[in-house]
């Protein structure tokens, strides 16, 4: 029973003897194939750690276990939330939107506005036109957006709803209410690609639809677009803007969702920050565009390069070399020298890397996540002398990514010890960790169970992270971002060293106060 002077929640309550008894008693009713047999569980658990199991596991063709990716509309919503006063609108069931909103909210610890038009059986039979007619009007009346950004779900895609026709139909029926409201749209079927594909589709469509092609090209001298890609680190957006500002005030981030997921206490308003609509509408006039995530913007790149005939660059400003390339690209495009402040930051970063390298040098890492995230992170690990033993990318694009990753790994003195795993999930990673162990894992919250199973410490960098607070507020881009990565990783190595040396009079030599 609870002690009123020391009330405990479930964490400690269920450890009390009376509850342990309850849990023990319950066991007699469990286990459909006879009583639960601890020896059998142990035997199978051990088998799952073997090379034999690994081979069966890697041979899987049909079932995916613990994926490291999400579906298209999630990325599409991020694009919408990066534009000022924009309401993301999902054409489909509200169940999907409840999931998208919860997912983002759990990561950012912030509200996530997004509506749906609540399609159900009748829409499955007759199509979702009626839902869209009511939905756009209701959304406009209640949330007063300046722009609506429409994406689809797998349901709408399977029944073949045509967004262009539907939106036109909805406008015609709306008694003028929607006449002046820009409504952009993209088809984002959940059974194609992943959340980064959705980001790409929505970004491309938004840019195309808000920037109609003109007969004559208008170019604003010195104007540069920066597209961040599917970026879960708000600090990275801030850092990239900060660096850009050092070069020119004509550099605009297109799809800037930093403020939307970083509002202060005191009051709540639905929309916060974002790229001004006028900037998005004139993005075509820029001299060039820099994408910070090559594989989140494959289709977008085609529009900008081929239709807009704009200069198009990809830079991945994660780690030292990535940031160097980004900074030099800005210097080249703006015709300016690298500012003293950035030079100082670079010096400080390299100094810090030289201070900390012994703790990362030769350490083995398993890293998983989105394609562009991995290109940046692995590059940094290699710069520090770490070994990216397993690089796992569930949503690796079919073209290009593996070669890009190989080129980065080739720079490592341990290149032969590194393996790239495109299209594999986290249950595959479990086998890899048991058979070819590493010192540390780097990835999102779902590595937590792998940590429990394999004992490999997890350094939480990636998306989503639900169980640790406020990491998304930091940057992993730019020199300052690289310093954050260095700090997180080095100190995780030191935490582990303390953990292994903390036993008094047993292992506590090397339990040092100075490092």
């Amino acid at each position: 029973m609870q002690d009123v002077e020391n009330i405990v929640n479930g964490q400690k309550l269920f450890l009390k003897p009376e509850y342990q008894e309850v849990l023990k008693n319950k066991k007699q009713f469990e286990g459909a194939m006879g009583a639960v047999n601890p020896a059998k569980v142990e035997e199978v658990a051990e088998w799952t750690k073997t090379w034999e199991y690994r081979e069966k596991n890697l041979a899987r063709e049909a079932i995916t276990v613990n994926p490291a990716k999400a579906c298209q509309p999630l990325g599409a919503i991020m694009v919408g939330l990066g534009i000022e006063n924009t309401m993301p609108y999902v054409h489909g069931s509200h169940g999907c939107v409840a999931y998208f909103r919860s997912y983002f909210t759990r990561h950012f610890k912030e509200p996530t506005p997004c509506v749906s038009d609540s399609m159900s059986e009748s829409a499955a039979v007759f199509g979702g036109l009626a839902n869209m007619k009511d939905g756009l009007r209701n959304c406009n009346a209640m949330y007063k957006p300046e722009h609506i950004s429409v994406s689809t779900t797998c349901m709408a895609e399977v029944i073949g709803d045509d967004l262009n026709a539907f939106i036109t139909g909805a406008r015609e029926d709306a008694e003028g209410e929607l006449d002046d409201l820009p409504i952009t749209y993209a088809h984002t079927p959940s059974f194609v690609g992943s959340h980064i594909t959705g980001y790409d589709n929505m970004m491309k469509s938004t840019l195309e639809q808000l920037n109609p092609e003109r007969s004559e090209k208008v170019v604003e001298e010195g104007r540069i677009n920066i597209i961040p890609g599917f970026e879960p680190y708000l600090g990275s957006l801030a850092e990239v803007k900060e660096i850009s500002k050092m070069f020119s005030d004509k550099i605009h981030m297109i799809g800037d969702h930093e403020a939307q997921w970083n509002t202060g206490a005191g009051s709540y308003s639905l929309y916060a920050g974002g790229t001004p609509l006028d900037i998005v509408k004139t993005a075509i006039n820029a001299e060039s565009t820099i994408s910070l995530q090559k594989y989140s913007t494959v289709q977008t790149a085609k529009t900008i390069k081929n239709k807009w005939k704009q200069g198009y660059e990809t830079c991945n400003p994660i780690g030292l070399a990535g940031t160097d390339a980004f900074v030099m690209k800005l210097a080249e495009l703006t015709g300016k020298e690298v500012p003293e402040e950035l030079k100082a930051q670079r010096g400080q970063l390299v100094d810090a890397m030289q201070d900390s390298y012994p703790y990362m040098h030769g350490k083995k890492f398993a890293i998983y996540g989105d394609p562009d995230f991995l290109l940046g992170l692995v590059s940094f690990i290699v710069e520090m002398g770490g070994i990216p033993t397993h690089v796992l990318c569930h949503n690796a694009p079919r073209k290009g990514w593996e070669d890009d990753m190989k080129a980065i790994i080739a720079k490592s003195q341990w290149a032969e010890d590194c393996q790239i795993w495109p299209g594999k999930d986290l249950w595959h990673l479990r086998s890899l960790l048991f058979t070819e162990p590493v010192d540390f894992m780097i990835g999102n919250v779902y590595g937590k169970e792998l940590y429990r199973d394999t004992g490999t410490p997890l350094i939480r960098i990636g998306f989503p992270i639900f169980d640790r607070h406020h990491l998304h507020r930091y940057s992993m881009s730019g020199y300052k971002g690289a310093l954050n990565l260095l700090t997180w990783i080095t100190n995780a190595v030191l935490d582990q060293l303390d953990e292994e040396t903390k036993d008094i009079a047993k292992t506590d030599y090397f339990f040092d106060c100075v490092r």
Partner: protein
Amino acid sequence: MGPETLEALQQEAIAEVLEVYPAKAAKNRAKHLGVDAPEGVKGACDKTRSNKQTVPGVMSQRGCAYAGSKGVVWGPIKDMIHISHGPVGCGQYSRAGRRNYYIGTTGVDTFVTMNFTTDFTEKDIVFGGDKKLKKALEEIDELFPLNNGISIQSECPIGLIGDDISAVAKVHKKESSKPTVAVSCEGFRGVSQSLGHHIANDMIRDEVMPDAAARADFESTDYDVSIIGDYNIGGDAWATRILLEEIGLRVIAQWSGDASYKELAVAPKAKLNLLHCYRSMNYISRHMEQEFGIPWMEYNFFGPTKTTESLRKIAAFFDESIQKKAEEVIAKYTAMTDAVIAKFKPKLEGKQVMLYVGGLRPRHVIGAYEDLGMEVIGTGYEFAHGDDYKRTKEDIARSTLIYDDVNEYELEKFVKKLKPDLVAAGVKEKYVFQKMGLPFRQMHSWDYSGPYHGYDAFAVFAKDMDLAMNSPVWNHTKAPWEKEEVGA
């Protein structure tokens, strides 16, 4: 605030939110909103329209049928593997989000927090996914030999492309000799997660209940009961179980938090079904009553008043020995809960609360707040039916704003108008209200605390509400240089 002022405010709040809608939507929403009072003759609880299509284009907090079946009913069954059949998203977004606690070796004999999906690609949509599903089932049995069955939870495209998942399941069941259940809980079915509960219950009825072999060696006692509709959020069902066992009953099955297939299969041997979440599990309780003659009883284990009332009601079903033990147990815990109330009530008395949750909580938790002297002035359900609102009427203690399928816009307006001291709702709402400087508790997951069911759990509840209401952080919302009111 007097009852008349409160009711006037509540009526005004409804009028104000309806103003912004286009005519058609306003007409629809008006039927879902109202005010009721305990003495109300025909109040909102009797009239509120519910279980209807959500108005398109708003931020509803509702989920879908898949969420109801996979997320609520089937997903927590720990020794079975539940496949999210279709594209990758649904399984990923619902992975490990609900705190259905269990004891087991995850990945070996227990699978609740994992995500198994057939991860549909365009090819599967075009050519159908049945072959892939069949292969997936075989791979699962090879890699997870200690699974005690598989359920196939359909996502939207499955029904739309016309896959015959029941046929695939039937073949696999025969070949593997393990339960294999195809659940057609596509997200577009129905208007909320509620239909998913019903569909899930129907499949338990059709695929689990007939499995007499699984209960053949079961030895009955006169005191066998099942806990139905407890998802063991934060360990709720364990905190419930201990009380039932202390009064002399034997809990033979726990549905479906920390449940195993066998517990579902032996449930027809119970002498009484104890139903906590009426909305999600009334269907199977009715079925067991008809098919096996097992009576069922609703109970409420939130707060000492309701827990005591419920324990007496449960004991009254059995003989005097149970009734005697129940009184002893009640007396034993009452001393503790009285002390909890004495400790926290002075800090919470008179504070007003607005609720918005699903299942049973919009009514069941009212008593627990009342025990602490707090007043619930607004409540509503994400996915209730008319009978839920009728049951709510019995629990309200004062003029109460009733809102069915309230959307983000309406809830924000209602809260600004009624200015409660605490909002208790879900994660999507949490940060909206916290930003306004309002204490908030996430009442789907107990905000990562709990349990909240039973006497011991009431102490946790009281402590958590005190933590929410009396944290110094709320005093920092307004900067020292600000004069105007914050949160408007």
